[in-house]
């Protein structure tokens, strides 16, 4: 047990959150910024805050606990999960996110509703909210594990503490708070992560040379950047596909794109987000593999526990606080963004047809967003300690549900828009996904394991192309529709006035 380090790690995060809020509050008083800020930061998020938000939203418990645990099974090849995120950032900030910003959409469900059919708004809103909620639960589990593991508190108590700080991360100032706290955390993550790697070399019995020698002797394949044939087939391909093509359809991952003041902001943000997210995988996987090689951390039984033990056995107290603080920060950032995404989907996409939630003022919208942030945090936190295994399975399983949305979006944007084709494609792909789950169909194609995303990609691409070509009433690609409406808007305003 280590209360000192736990309190230190928690304080690390609370101090950053409150300091950023104080700065934001003082700026707001000075600049008289409005309530719209909460979910879109007044559409003024700078590129570095967008980059940090993109990088850290995608970097949570899945990286901290998931990658360190996975490192014992797939070794360095686990990095392809992170590399897949790099591709996701390209898709979001070079394509999908650009279009959300251009058309003025706030949620991707709203985008699909405009492109194809309004019925998709609540359907995809429900999927988006569920997906976000599952990640809230996973992040809460991660925080509960870290806090309870280090203090002897119960899992529930650890979850409550973690969720409370996570709520603070977003409740005070919404996406603006998230953006700037993420920026500070991104810098500190790398600083303390690299310092930890250096310390491990000097505090472990034989340093990194000894760790590498042990892994070479006993776990050779774990030091292969591509693993082996089995790892490529059952992990690398499916993981890359789901991260690249599924995660870009998660509201939590695109909301910051809607918050920029112009498309050009996304250019710099993308280039920065890629290294900011992907390189952290090297740090956490190196620590995970080191914990496997060292006898006194290998007894932890899994990489996640091993990394925590390594932190306490081989790093000085001040660095333990910083590393645990960084781990919590990674989970908190995802927790915060996912609660905001959940609330945004619920208020704007699911409840907006109801009279009470139509035409909300910015102040009313902020109230309801905050309400559903609390709702999702509390319910997600409870689920984190009561139905952990089910949610974990469901969250991973449901990531492939987002993959068909990407291909439907691509075809609708670039070629033809057919509401019926979109609806049929999505429904049939989701049915296929259920069939894959409950039968041995994947094994027939030698694609068992983490490979439903391959089926989802192939099925959605083929079905959407076929159904769109069969629909005689299919409309022009959304790009053309945008150009037409934009031209009319510019003509009404007397031409384009490009900011210098």
């Amino acid at each position, binding site marked *: 047990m280590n209360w000192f380090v736990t309190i230190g790690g928690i304080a690390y995060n609370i101090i950053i959150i409150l300091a950023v809020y104080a700065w934001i509050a003082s700026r707001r008083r000075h600049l008289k910024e409005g309530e719209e800020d909460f979910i879109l930061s007044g559409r003024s998020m700078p590129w570095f805050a967008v980059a940090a938000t993109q990088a850290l939203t995608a970097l949570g418990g899945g990286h901290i606990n998931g990658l360190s645990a996975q490192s014992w099974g797939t070794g360095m090849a686990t990095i392809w999960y992170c590399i897949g995120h790099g591709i996701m950032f390209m898709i979001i900030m070079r394509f999908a996110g650009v279009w959300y910003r251009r058309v003025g959409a706030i949620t991707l469900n709203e985008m699909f509703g405009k492109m194809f059919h309004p019925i998709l708004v609540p359907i995809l809103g429900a999927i988006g909210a569920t997906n976000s909620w599952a990640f809230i639960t996973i992040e809460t589990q991660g925080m509960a594990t870290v806090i309870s593991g280090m203090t002897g508190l119960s899992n529930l108590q650890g979850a409550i503490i973690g969720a409370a700080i996570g709520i603070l991360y977003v409740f005070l100032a919404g996406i603006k708070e998230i953006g700037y706290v993420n920026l500070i955390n991104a810098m500190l993550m790398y600083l303390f992560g690299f310092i930890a790697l250096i310390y491990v070399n000097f505090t472990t019995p034989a340093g990194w040379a000894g*760790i590498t020698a042990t892994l070479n002797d006993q776990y050779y394949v774990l030091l292969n950047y591509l693993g082996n044939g089995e790892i490529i087939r059952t992990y690398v391909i499916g993981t890359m596909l789901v991260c690249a093509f599924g995660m870009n359809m998660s509201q939590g991952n695109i909301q910051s794109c809607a918050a920029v003041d112009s498309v050009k902001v996304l250019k710099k943000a*993308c280039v920065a987000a890629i290294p900011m997210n992907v390189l952290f995988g090297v740090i956490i996987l190196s620590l995970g593999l080191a914990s496997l090689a060292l006898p006194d951390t290998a007894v932890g039984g899994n990489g996640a526990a091993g990394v925590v033990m390594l932190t306490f056995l081989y790093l000085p107290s001040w660095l333990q606080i910083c590393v645990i603080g960084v781990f919590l920060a990674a989970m908190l950032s995802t927790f915060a963004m996912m609660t905001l995404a959940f609330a945004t989907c619920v208020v704007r996409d699911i409840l907006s047809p109801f009279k009470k939630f139509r035409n909300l003022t910015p102040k009313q919208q902020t109230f309801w967003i905050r309400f559903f942030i609390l709702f999702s945090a509390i319910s997600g936190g409870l689920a984190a300690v009561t139905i952990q295994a089910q949610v974990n399975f469901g969250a991973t399983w449901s990531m492939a549900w987002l993959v068909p949305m990407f291909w439907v979006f691509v075809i609708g944007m670039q070629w033809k828009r057919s509401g019926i084709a979109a609806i049929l494609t999505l429904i049939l792909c989701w049915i296929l996904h259920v069939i894959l789950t409950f039968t041995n169909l994947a094994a027939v194609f030698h694609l068992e394991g983490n490979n439903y995303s391959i089926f989802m990609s192939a099925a959605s691409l083929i079905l959407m192309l076929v159904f769109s070509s069969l629909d005689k009433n299919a409309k022009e690609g959304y790009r053309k529709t945008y150009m037409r409406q934009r031209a009319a808007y510019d003509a009404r305003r007397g031409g384009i006035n490009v900011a210098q």
Partner: protein
Amino acid sequence: MGFIHTTLPLGFFLITVLVVIIEMIVSLIWWNKWMVHFPEDDIEWDEKDPFIMQVE
């Protein structure tokens, strides 16, 4: 090269940096060569009269 066997953490880091640089280059090529650009992409959000696509 096989499955690219390397050392920890330096070799791992250097290969990943290379992969990241490739991704960054691809993303810039995507921006400059494949992406459609419009003059309004440089215009800041107009709170009073924003452009928001209408349903057709």
